[in-house]
């Protein structure tokens, strides 16, 4: 290949010779991950089931299926599964998720959501401004706890009924909550998508958050204005018998703004994410106990079936079923399915790399599609959009496409910060826009589930997911900002422009 193309030569042929041979050639090495993507589309997109455990089974079946295409005694195939699972990219994300989960849950039991609702009350937020306020406050919560799904569930459970009852439009309010979740998922240093985007692109999380602030704020300002305008245009639902939902809102929970600030400030200052969240967690536990926001047992509890002298301890209680509980426990446990899924997806990606399928797809993209830096960035933006439109569990989608973003970007020396931002923008945005998206479904489930809002207050409290699509303003604006950024070069940075901190500090 001539050097005039910038050097996309035939290096892969000499240095990355496929190590596993497949019946059907190197494209057959994509069978496990292709099967998984089809499974994910059917499960989440067609059937509307946002169950991470279901995706785990899909990944397992896909991995077994791929084995039947491998030539030889399958040892190389099996070894490659282990090789993939032990990659640092997976380990780093897993460690961070465990810490983030504990922190998020401890804020929840500490009444942070109630504090936010109290603040909205104190600021006298009315029906027309409620959606805009919901966007800001949900964005704040999601930025603090790092999970848009968690923020969506919390806000739809508590904030949504309160807003509808005072006259806000239900569709706009649901969309505003989803927009807040997009903002937090995109920007939060403890967000799973932020962590994956940073570690897969060899960039430190603090620097990634700082570098993506510009895109987030450029999308958020017009989104906030749009919620203010549409809040006065769209009418609310008429509901009888307003419940005193906001009785649960109390000011003390607002103290966790400091816990959240500790994590954000230390992470952005470049400290290890585990250290940053540990400090936030310590501060949050101290506040919970000092101000009586939660009991020790809310944070950690051992439940025994037999009365024992140890039951006098604040973290031991007697119950019908023995077990361990509390925010530290449930916060970490909540990520276990995602951790298993991550290990399997990285293993499937490694099979594709060792079998030559990864290189084949990459060569096709680089030779036919991403032939200039502008087209490369557009390919990255549209590629992340396409995969997130199909796989609606946003972190799973992000992990699946991360290797391509890394390699396409590196072939043009696009900086790791920029790559991480392109990767995360659509992942965050589209995971909360389409009716089959996981983020929309978790909120919808709160409305239609057993003892859901619809059952409690009537059908006015149930929003058809397809109706919110045009109103998730921050999500749409974020997609548009990155399309324009790819075309115009806004925010583009090359690797020589600045060096990312070491990933080990992520």
């Amino acid at each position, binding site marked *: 290949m001539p050097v005039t193309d910038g050097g996309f030569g035939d290096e892969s042929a000499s240095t990355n010779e496929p190590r596993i041979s497949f019946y059907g050639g190197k494209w057959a090495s994509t069978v496990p991950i292709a099967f998984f993507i089809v499974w994910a589309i059917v499960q989440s997109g067609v059937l509307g089931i946002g169950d991470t455990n279901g995706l785990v089974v899909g990944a397992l079946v896909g991995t077994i299926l791929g084995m039947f295409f491998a030539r030889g005694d399958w040892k190389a195939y099996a070894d490659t599964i282990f090789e993939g699972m032990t990659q640092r990219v997976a380990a780093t994300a897993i460690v961070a998720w465990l810490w983030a989960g504990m922190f998020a849950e401890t804020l929840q039991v500490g009444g942070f959501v109630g504090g936010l609702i109290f603040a909205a009350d104190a600021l006298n937020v009315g029906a027309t401004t409620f959606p805009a306020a919901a966007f800001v406050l949900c964005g704040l919560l999601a930025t603090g706890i790092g999970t848009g799904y968690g923020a969506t569930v919390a806000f739809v459970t508590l904030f949504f009924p309160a807003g509808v009852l005072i006259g806000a439009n239900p569709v706009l309010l649901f969309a505003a909550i989803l927009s807040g979740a997009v903002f937090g998922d995109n920007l939060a240093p403890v967000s799973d998508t932020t962590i994956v985007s940073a570690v*897969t692109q060899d960039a430190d999380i603090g620097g990634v958050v700082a570098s993506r602030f510009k895109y987030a704020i450029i999308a958020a300002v017009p989104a906030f204005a749009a919620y203010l305008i549409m809040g006065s245009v769209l009418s609310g639902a008429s509901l009888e018998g307003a419940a005193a939902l906001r009785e649960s809102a109390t000011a003390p929970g607002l103290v966790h703004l400091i816990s959240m600030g500790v994590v954000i400030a230390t992470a952005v200052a470049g400290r290890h994410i585990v250290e940053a969240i540990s400090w936030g967690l310590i501060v949050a536990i101290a506040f919970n106990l000092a101000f009586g926001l939660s009991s020790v047992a809310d944070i950690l509890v051992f439940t025994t079936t037999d009365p024992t002298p140890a039951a006098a301890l604040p973290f031991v209680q007697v119950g019908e079923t023995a077990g361990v509980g509390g925010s530290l426990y449930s916060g970490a446990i909540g990520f276990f399915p995602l951790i298993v899924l991550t290990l399997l997806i990285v293993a499937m990606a490694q099979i594709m790399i060792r079998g030559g399928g990864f290189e084949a797809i990459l060569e096709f993209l680089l030779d036919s599609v991403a032939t200039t830096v502008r087209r490369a960035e557009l390919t990255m933006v549209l590629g992340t959009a396409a995969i997130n439109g199909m796989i609606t569990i946003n972190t799973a989608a992000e992990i699946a496409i991360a290797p391509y973003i890394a390699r396409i970007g590196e072939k043009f020396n696009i900086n790791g910060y920029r790559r991480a931002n392109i990767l995360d923008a659509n992942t965050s945005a589209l995971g909360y826009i389409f009716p089959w998206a996981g983020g929309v479904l978790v909120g919808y489930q709160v409305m239609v589930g057993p003892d859901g809002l619809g059952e409690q207050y009537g059908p006015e409290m149930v929003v058809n997911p397809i109706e919110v699509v045009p109103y998730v303003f921050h999500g749409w604006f974020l997609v548009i900002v990155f399309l324009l950024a790819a075309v115009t070069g806004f*925010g583009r940075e090359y690797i020589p422009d600045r060096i990312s901190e070491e990933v080990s500090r992520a």
Partner: protein
Amino acid sequence: MSRFEKFLAGWSFRGSTPDYEPGDVIEVMVTGDAGGETVARIGDSTLRIEGAPDDAVDTRVRVAVETWDETTHRGTGTYRETVGESAF
């Protein structure tokens, strides 16, 4: 880079053909090896690297820029050391 500078970085429209000065020492990913020449493509600019190891492709190297033509956005440089590798 300070925390404040990290927030301000990238608030600009960066072109597709970055240029460098002779004497600059930069870190780049080696993107290709064609016809015995090691090449780093930076955006749509090209830097030929002399003295790089045979297996330099997809590694991050430090290069001293020797010549640069701002018209064609091409230059040459000398390999200093390998400082990293591809993310994947």
